[in-house]
């Protein structure tokens, strides 16, 4: 092996440099200037896009979520549902990733539009909170046992929760359930509620959710819809995700305005259905 003994920095630099860059030998191109962002005086609008063309049903997202949160056996915050379409011999199996939709909602509590789970919560609205945007603008909002943050995330504050379960009943997707390992903050005789938080602890550190980070085929795309340069904004525009909610979101009849969109060119979502009484069973990830 040759040992680099050239310690004469001036000599090293005299002969290199500009020629390297000019020749294209010094352009890894991993970074780029940030595009002029949308005025971040607004809170971000977090959305996730599930690209059904890409999902291979590998369950890496399910496992990443479980390891991130130590989700107990038998419980899931995100699942992959398998849908078989067509008739023998012309059949096809498709995969539909599911998690809490962090719905925009259409019902009002005061001046805030909230989804059914928040509307149903007897412990909402409670304490006054402040959300600070990247630009430092402060947005006031109300906390509660389950509440909506200005960036669209639907979160749970267990200290304020009585474990009444009304939010579980209200959610048409079965995305909420009882946490058998944890008791609610206000009533120690009842279990706490568990659901996907969209990895808020990671988002607040500028890191994508665990399921997105681990998705090898890139079937989960996450970002800020208020940022026109974001991947989600571009995809939403390209596939008309916002305009065609009846085809791009789960159970559009409930008018919850989900923030999880599906790129679904084969119309698989239309073939996926479950009865309301089975919604919790539906939220179990069982590989068939």
């Amino acid at each position, binding site marked *: 092996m040759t040992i680099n003994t050239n310690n004469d920095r001036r000599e090293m630099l005299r*002969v290199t440099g500009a020629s390297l860059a000019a020749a294209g030998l*010094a352009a890894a191109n991993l970074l780029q200037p940030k595009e002029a962002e949308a005025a971040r005086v607004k809170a971000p609008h977090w959305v996730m896009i599930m690209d059904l063309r890409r999902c291979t049903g590998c369950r890496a997202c399910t496992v990443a979520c479980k390891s991130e949160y130590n989700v107990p056996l038998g419980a899931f915050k995100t699942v992959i549902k398998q849908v078989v379409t067509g008739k023998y011999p012309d059949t096809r199996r498709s995969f539909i990733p599911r998690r809490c939709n962090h719905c925009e909602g259409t019902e009002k509590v005061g001046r805030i539009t909230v989804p059914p789970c928040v509307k149903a919560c007897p412990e909402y609205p409670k304490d006054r909170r402040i959300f600070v945007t990247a630009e430092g603008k402060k947005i006031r909002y109300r906390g509660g046992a389950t509440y909506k943050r200005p960036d669209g995330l639907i979160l749970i504050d267990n200290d304020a929760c009585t474990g009444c379960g009304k939010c579980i009943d209200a959610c048409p997707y079965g995305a909420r359930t009882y946490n058998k390992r944890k008791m609610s903050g206000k009533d120690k005789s009842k279990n706490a509620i568990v659901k996907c938080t969209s990895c808020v602890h990671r988002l607040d550190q500028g890191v994508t959710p665990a399921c997105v980070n681990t998705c090898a085929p890139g079937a989960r795309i996450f970002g800020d819809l208020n940022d026109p340069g974001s*991947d989600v904004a571009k995809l939403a525009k390209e596939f008309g995700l916002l305009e065609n909610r009846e085809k791009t979101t789960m159970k559009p009849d409930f008018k919850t305005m989900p923030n999880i969109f599906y790129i679904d060119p084969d119309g698989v979502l239309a073939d996926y259905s479950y009865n309301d009484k089975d919604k919790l069973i539906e939220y179990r990830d069982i590989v068939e």
Partner: protein
Amino acid sequence: MEKTDSNVAGIYGLLATFFAREIDLKQLEMLRNPEFRDLLETLGVNLGDDFFKRDATLLLEDLAVEFATLFIGPGNFISPHESVHRPRDDGDYGKLWGADTVAVKKFIEATGLAYRPEFGGMPDHIAAEFEFVQKIEERMETARSDGDQDLAENLKSIKNRFLTEHLLAWGPGLMDKIMTNATLPFYREIAALAKNFLQQEGELIQQQAVK
């Protein structure tokens, strides 16, 4: 005060290019032309006769296999990410997406740069860190030629902070591991160049601190 030299950016860029992905035919042809061969020798990089004489297709294949063996896997590979190599005071060590990953991502994005969507590595990939310093150096050069000394000094302090907090804290150690594991001269020599260069950058920062 040391004058900024765009050549510094060039070397950072070269290192970023080689650690970002395996080299391609165009890069190989450039490296093989006499001008670059002399340049590499001046840098103390001896790639061996094989590198310049062997059939390009076969050599590129071997270099791609070496790159994958060293940095991608399967088996025992050297993850080129800071959080895997750098023990922290809080005991966080050996994980992907560790606290240092977030720190690097925030540092880089705070300067107005963003990761390209097609970049599949973690934010604290060695190539991303090299490229970040390259871009700061280039911007510093522009500021100096524009006569904006305040901005140049500010950028210099950003570069020194990033080197001290991140690249110098784990880069030389990573290069040692690459030199130990490399089976072909190319990555062994590039790692040696990187380590040597980083050490010089560290010495320069210390000298500036004494002044």
